[in-house]
């Protein structure tokens, strides 16, 4: 912050400045309209006056109270202006890194390819293949016998006789027709490829479903077999238990009957007259 050299009319303290306020107002009222040293004052204030200009203005200041007060007032304004300083600096980045841009583009393509459905992938591959075929001079046509392909390398296209006349408009028309036919064939081929892809996808899904059903059926049969085996086993055990029970019940009855038989003759002999030991 430049300060005028030479004369210094700045008050020593804030309080002196406050006291000077009334003086400022008074002197502004007394300022002569003839004093038009504005440019010199500004150049002197910002130390851009030449030594000669500065000397002349200082001489003027001795005689002009209005310019003295104005100079002091401007210096105070400058002090106040300097109170406003920039603290936070924004981050400015204008130029994008081309490497980053390229990577991000590839990343986007990769992500796009990852999320696209299988039939779109198939169509993309088919389209790429068609482009390659077209670039290599391969022609595709649909005739009575179905599709027919013919290919020729780019370098071997110069089979046209240089001395042959320039193609007539009629020939050009024919070429356009062929081109339209080729386009139609290409469209058909793309549609067919898409349909094939969808069909394959459906078949794959169906096969997977059948496989799952079969697996479920097998699992169910195995479980049923196990259950049947267990039921049979339990039935067998039950029969065994029943037989055991019957056997036990049978032996008890025999014992009872045997004991009854053993006691019955004793009673008969004791009751018979003339019998005894």
């Amino acid at each position, binding site marked *: 912050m430049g300060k005028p050299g030479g004369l210094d009319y700045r008050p020593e303290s804030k309080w002196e400045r406050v006291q000077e306020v009334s003086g400022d107002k008074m002197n502004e009222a007394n300022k002569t309209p003839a004093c038009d040293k504005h*440019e010199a004052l500004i150049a002197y204030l910002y130390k851009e006056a030449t030594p000669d200009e500065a000397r002349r203005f200082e001489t003027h200041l001795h005689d002009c109270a209005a310019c003295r007060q104005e100079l002091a007032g401007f210096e*105070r304004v400058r002090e*106040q*202006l300097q109170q406003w300083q920039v603290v936070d600096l924004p981050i*400015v980045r204008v*130029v994008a890194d081309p490497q980053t841009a390229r990577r991000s583009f590839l990343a986007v393509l990769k992500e796009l390819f990852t999320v696209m459905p299988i039939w779109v992938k198939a169509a993309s591959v088919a389209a790429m293949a068609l482009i390659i075929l077209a670039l290599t001079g391969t022609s595709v046509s649909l005739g009575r016998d179905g599709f027919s392909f013919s290919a020729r390398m780019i370098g071997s296209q110069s089979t046209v006789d240089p001395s042959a006349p320039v193609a007539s408009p009629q020939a050009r028309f024919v070429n356009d027709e062929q081109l339209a036919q080729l386009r139609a064939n290409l469209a058909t081929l793309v549609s067919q490829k898409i349909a094939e892809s969808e069909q394959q996808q459906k078949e794959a899904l169906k096969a997977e479903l059948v496989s799952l059903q079969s697996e479920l059926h097998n699992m169910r049969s195995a479980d049923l077999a196990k259950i049947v085996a267990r039921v049979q086993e339990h039935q067998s055990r039950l029969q065994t238990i029943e037989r055991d029970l019957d056997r036990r019940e049978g032996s008890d009855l025999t014992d009872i009957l045997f004991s009854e038989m053993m006691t019955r003759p004793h009673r008969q002999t004791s009751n018979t007259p003339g019998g005894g030991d």
Partner: protein
Amino acid sequence: MDLSDTQLIERTLGGEPDAFNMLVRRWERQIYGLTLRMLGRDEEARDATQETFLSAYRNLSKFRGEAKFSSWIYRIALNICNTRLRGRARNIISLDEQREASGFELAADTEDLGNHIQQEQVTRAVRRALQGLPAEMRQVIVMKEYEGLKFSEIADILGLPVSTVKTRMYTGLSELRKRLEHLREAM
């Protein structure tokens, strides 16, 4: 060894984007300071700074080495600020409005006010006083006071005679002196 602005421009045009980033880092503080003091709003100043460097980058091939890069980019920044300012209604705030808006309660406790005015309040008052000036005066004061440019450089940037720049400076300072009078009284 630091490369000059011209060398950095040449390298940028030669396909080295990092060279322009160096130019940005070299000048962003000055340009942000200029836009902030011209526009008075932080967010808008940030946008204007970004816009300035973007415009400079796009038009770098049009830059002629005859002028200084600083003058050229200052001119771009000022044009952007002026475009934004034209979008606003010109509003020169009266002293009473300034007092009300800036929160100065001069009549409340005048005795202690000089001790209680904080740096933030001074800054706010200065900001508002500057915003109240016409743009043609404000830009001269900002370039002189905050950017430290010479009057001849300001004249070159604005395409004006030096005498006109000094007159605008004088008028602007006189206006500011009136507008900041209450602050000085308070101090």
